[in-house]
């Protein structure tokens, strides 16, 4: 029995200790926004946050996640798709098929929380998710726009 803190809620799951977090999220907790695409940490479709860090959940055994570590999935990024990245993505029509986008957004969100105003080089270094449809240029614009939305939000506070 593993105890986890997912999107602010504590849950208990009865799974083999080796089961990757990805599959616990998808199959035990029905949080299917986190995607399987490679299973070897190469593509980033399964990216979630653990204590604010972007982590590829397909390589993370559930036993390695502590009961007090905050796991955030795309479903928990914001209650009403109001995260600046979600706003920016909507404004720019970023997704195409959309399958890689939860992971893409989670990678970008971790970057933004560490670097509120990332440069193109920061984006290149930190957003290494694969998108086969080819949304990269809108993803880049989306991250810059989200940074601006953030800034405007802070200015209003």
């Amino acid at each position, binding site marked *: 029995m593993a105890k986890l803190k997912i999107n602010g809620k504590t849950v208990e799951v009865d799974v*083999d200790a080796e*089961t*990757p977090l990805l*599959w616990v999220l*998808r*199959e*035990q907790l*029905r*949080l*299917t*926004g*986190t*995607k*399987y*695409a*490679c*299973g*070897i940490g*190469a*593509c980033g*479709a399964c990216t979630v946050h653990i204590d604010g860090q972007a982590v590829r959940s397909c390589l993370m055994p559930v036993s390695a996640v502590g009961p007090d570590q905050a796991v955030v*999935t*795309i*479903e928990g*990024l914001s209650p009403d*798709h109001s995260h600046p990245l*979600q706003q920016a*993505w*909507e404004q720019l*029509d*970023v*997704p*195409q*098929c*959309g*399958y*890689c*986008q*939860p992971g893409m*957004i989670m990678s970008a969100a971790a970057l933004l929380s560490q670097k509120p105003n990332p440069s193109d080089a920061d*984006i*290149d*270094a930190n*957003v*290494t*998710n*694969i*998108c*086969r*449809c*080819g*949304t*990269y*240029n*809108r*993803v*880049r614009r989306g991250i810059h726009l989200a940074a601006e939305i953030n800034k405007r939000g802070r200015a209003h506070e």
Partner: protein
Amino acid sequence: MSKKRVNVSRREFLIHSTTIGAGFALGMYIPLTGKTALAAEQTVTAEVPEVNAWVVIKPDDTVVIRIARSEMGQGTLTGLAQLVAEELECDWSKVTTEYPTPGQSLARERVWGSFSTGGSQGIRGSHAYVRKGGAVARQMLIEAAADAWGVDMEQCRAANSVITHVPSGRTTTYGKVAVDAADLIPPLEVELKDPKEWKLIGKPVKRLDTVDKLTGKQVFGADLQLPGMLNAAIKACPVFGGKLKSFDAAKVRTMPGVRTVVAVEDNAVAVVAETWWQANTALNALPVKWDTGPNAAVSSQTIAKMLDEGLGAKEASIGNEAGDAKKALKEAVKTVEATYAYPYQNHATMEPMNATALWTKERCEVWCPTQNGEAALQATAEAAGLSASRCEVYKIHLGGGFGRRGAFHDYVKQAVAIAKQVPGIPVKLLWSREEDMQHGHYHPITKARLVGGLDQNGDLVGMQVRISGQSILASVNPNWMSNGVDMFVFQGLMAEGDHAISYSVPNLSIDHAMRNPHVPPGFWRGVNINQNAIYMESFIDELAHAAGKDPLEFRQKLMSDNPKGRAVLDAVAEKAGWGKSAPEGVHRGLAVCKAFASYVAACAEVSVDGNGKLKMHRIVAATDPGYAVNPQQIEAQVEGSFVFGLSALLYGECTVAAGGVEQQNFDTYASMLIADMPKVEVIVMPSGGFWGGIGEPTIAVAAPAVLNAIFAATGKRIREFPLKNNDLRAV
């Protein structure tokens, strides 16, 4: 006075047509919470009568537009809705969409036309009848309002979902008259708007399917959950054409969650378990013996030999011929010869192949991502051993298609074959990435030898092109060939039509020596233009340099019969600053092509450093698709085409050893990342009068523009791909 239906009421028919889906109730368990997901993925709306097959209007004025083609990221869903809504004159902010099912299509004699979503056909192949669908519905709504008011419908106008009786100024809304409109006999003839009157077509409206993709709510096939559902993982013989010999189920039967281990068709084995992770873990522990057969002796080297032989073979099928190429080359002052080779490539959709099936002796239902619902239904019926009328397919959102999920429903057949062995229980089959990489229907492998002849002025007087290699049609559908010739092999090189060659070469011979290795080929986004445009556009560049001419001027001179092609080429050259100095170390390359009826061109700017590291800085691209339905989505597709085409150029290669594909995952079959991505400037220049495709054409020019820029930067002409195998350091 309006004509009411007298025989079968439309409402009765609708009820009948929705109840054919006995599993509809099951479908309701799909965990769809978002509005668009519900609209797009539920079966046809039942509670309100349709105005016609394309349009349902609810009392609250919500407009439900039915979409038969599949949305897989390319924006077709939104574009098709724009076409219907343009003629319907409805309020765009009230528009939602839904997919009719293939079973409903069957029951209603294909009222929605083709479901096939490939060949960049989504919009160009259905614009006329979907616009008509919208126009007919509009007329019926106006007629219903006029009837209610007792006025002549000629005195009524519709705009923005509101009908106005012009003389009196009375108004009503679509939602109020839709039920009455549904009972009217549709007009046989309606006039479509002149393109000059379009208000919504041509507007860069937002996609209808974005929000749920930002929150994790969008349900893809791989995400589907049905009550009581089991999960299956599969392994097919790693050698194409090989068979399953035996497996030792006892070794894994007691592993956690495992329910059963089953043979699938004659070449695969699957583990069925409570969760997919359990199924896949057990599958990896399962001892399996294969009968690999004679193909186990095939490797990339033996395939290359086979193609090399074809390059010099006497027998070949002519694809395009003019004048006397042989004579012209003999008389030429200078000849240039080059041989190019293009590898196998996997579609590598981000969402691996999957399908969920529920089989009983009486009925079979499948939930799957598919580019062709009708073909998925046929595959279901075939595998289920039932008539199609006893089967149904529910299309679930695709995590990428790229051609993999259109002509091939191997994953559907497998899911049904597994479901047959656990009757009455829904089973979701999901391929691992490794299975997906090794059991694709690959971009076909070809080589080309090109010979060009120049006269004393450096003008091109003759060209021979010999293509040697694989035919997709010979493998997929030999019925589409004529006299054993696959004309599709000549895509981008044909004498005329949607894939016509860009240049007028006075003496020309292009032929194909078909050589079909055992690796299954498939339609891969762009299909045969991918390699043919590389061959032609690189070689034209070679000829220009051999002639000592500017590559732009050399091309222009050969394009006097191709004004639209010339226009897109000129547009990119001008915007990129061709002929003007580029930033220090940056070099330019051009490419132009006609593909899927659209004219496309690109100018790439690259630099190559002393270590041979390529940097793609900027690409200017132009597209003339005739009519541009949604310019911002066209821009997205053009940008995406560069990612797809340049990923293929940089990294895309499946090699063959012992009869199977060597690559297993994204670590050995890489894709471009955001860091590799150049700036893309898109010129959308619709010239009107025709309908060209969008999703694929630009892929044709992506690679050759970059290759020609690499030559400009380094003096190196790359003729074998992908680039990762080449040393790009300057000569």
